[in-house]
C-alpha cells in the first residue's frame, strides 16, 4: 500500500502547490487533454499528409516550428522543434531522445506554424546552445517542467528560453504543450498553414 498512498499524497501536494490551475483551468494541458478525451481525441492525432511549400527559408536559429493534426488531444499542435540552422531542428522523440532531425518532416503536417521569439539574436543563440547541450537525453511524454533528466519536444524549448529569462508558459502550467508556445506573448507568427 506504499505507492497508492504516496500517489495520493503527491497528487495533493502538487495540487496544493498549483492552486491557480484548479481555479483557472482553461488553457492548462490537463484541462485541454480532458476536454479532448471527451471528444474521443486521445493522442498526437493523425491525418493525411499534406505536402506543401512551407517557407522554411525564413527561419533563423532559435525560431520554433510547430506541427499538428486536426485531432490532436493537447491543442492545435502535436509536435515542436527548435530551429538550429542549416535545415535542422532539435526535437524530442521517444525512440531517439532529444535529437537533431531534418526540418522536412514538418512539411507533411496538416497544420504548421513558424514562430519567432522576440528577443535579441544573442539570447536566441544562447537558447540554441542550451538545447544542444541536452541532446540525446531521455524523452518522456509526461515530463514535468521541473528537472533536467526527462524531456519532451516542448519542454526543451521552454527550458532553453527560460534559462535566458524568457518564460514561454503564460499560465504557469505543470507541463508545457506546443500550444503554449504559440500563445506566448514572446512570439510572433512568421507563417502558418491549416490553422
Amino acid at each position, binding site marked *: 500500500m*506504499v*505507492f*497508492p498512498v*504516496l*500517489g495520493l499524497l*503527491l*497528487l495533493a501536494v*502538487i495540487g496544493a502547490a498549483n492552486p491557480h490551475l484548479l481555479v483557472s483551468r482553461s488553457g492548462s494541458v490537463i484541462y485541454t487533454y480532458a476536454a479532448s478525451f471527451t471528444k474521443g481525441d486521445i*493522442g*498526437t492525432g*493523425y491525418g493525411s499528409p499534406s505536402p506543401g511549400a512551407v517557407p522554411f527559408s525564413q527561419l533563423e536559429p532559435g525560431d520554433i516550428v510547430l506541427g499538428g493534426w486536426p485531432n490532436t488531444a493537447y491543442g492545435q499542435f502535436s509536435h515542436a522543434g527548435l530551429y538550429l540552422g542549416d535545415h535542422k531542428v532539435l526535437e524530442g522523440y*521517444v*525512440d*531517439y*531522445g532529444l535529437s537533431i532531425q531534418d526540418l522536412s518532416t514538418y512539411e507533411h503536417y496538416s497544420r504548421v506554424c513558424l514562430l519567432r521569439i522576440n528577443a535579441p539574436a544573442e539570447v536566441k543563440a544562447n537558447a540554441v546552445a542550451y538545447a544542444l547541450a541536452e*541532446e*540525446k*537525453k*531521455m*524523452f*518522456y*511524454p*509526461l*515530463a*514535468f517542467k*521541473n*528537472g*533536467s*533528466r*526527462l524531456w519532451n519536444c516542448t519542454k526543451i524549448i521552454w527550458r532553453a528560453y527560460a534559462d535566458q529569462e524568457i518564460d514561454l508558459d503564460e499560465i504557469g502550467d*505543470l507541463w508545457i504543450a506546443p500550444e503554449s508556445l504559440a500563445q506566448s506573448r514572446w512570439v510572433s507568427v512568421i507563417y502558418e498553414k491549416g490553422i
Partner: protein
Amino acid sequence: MKRGFNIFSFLTRGYILHISAIIAIGLAMYFPGLDIILALIYIYLVWKEGSHCQRRLSQVEMAAVAVLWQLPGYVLAASILLPMESASQFSYYFIFMLELWDTPLLPLISMLPTWTLLGRPLYYYLMFGLVPALSLYYYTPVLLRNRLQSRSAGSI
C-alpha cells in the same frame, strides 16, 4: 483450487504494486530526486514481494506469476519489435505505452550516460530489456533458494 487462488492473489498484488508505482513515481518526477528514491523503494518492494511469493508457490507457479505480472510489457514490446505494429491505428502509441509501463525504473535509467547505439539512445533498448529483467528479478528469490538448498544438500 487453493493454488489457483494463490497465483491470482500474488498476480493481483504484483499489478497493484506496479501500477500504483507508475502513478506515484510519475507524480514524483515533479520533485526531481524524489522519483529516484521511489524507484529504489520500488526495487526493494519487488524483491520483498518475490521473496514472499516464493514461500507460497512452487517454482513453476512462481515463474508463471513473474511472467504474467509483466504481461502488458511483453505484449507492448512484442508489438513494437514484430510487424504487429501496423495492426491498428493505435500501434503508433505502443512505444509511448511501453515507456509509461517502464515508468517505475525510468528515473534510474535517466541517470545513465547518453550513449547511442545504431543511432538510438541506450534508454530505448533498455525500455525493452526492463520487462524481462523485472520478471527475472521477481523470480530471483527462487533461484537463490534453489542454490542454497543445493549447497546445503551438498554439505550433508
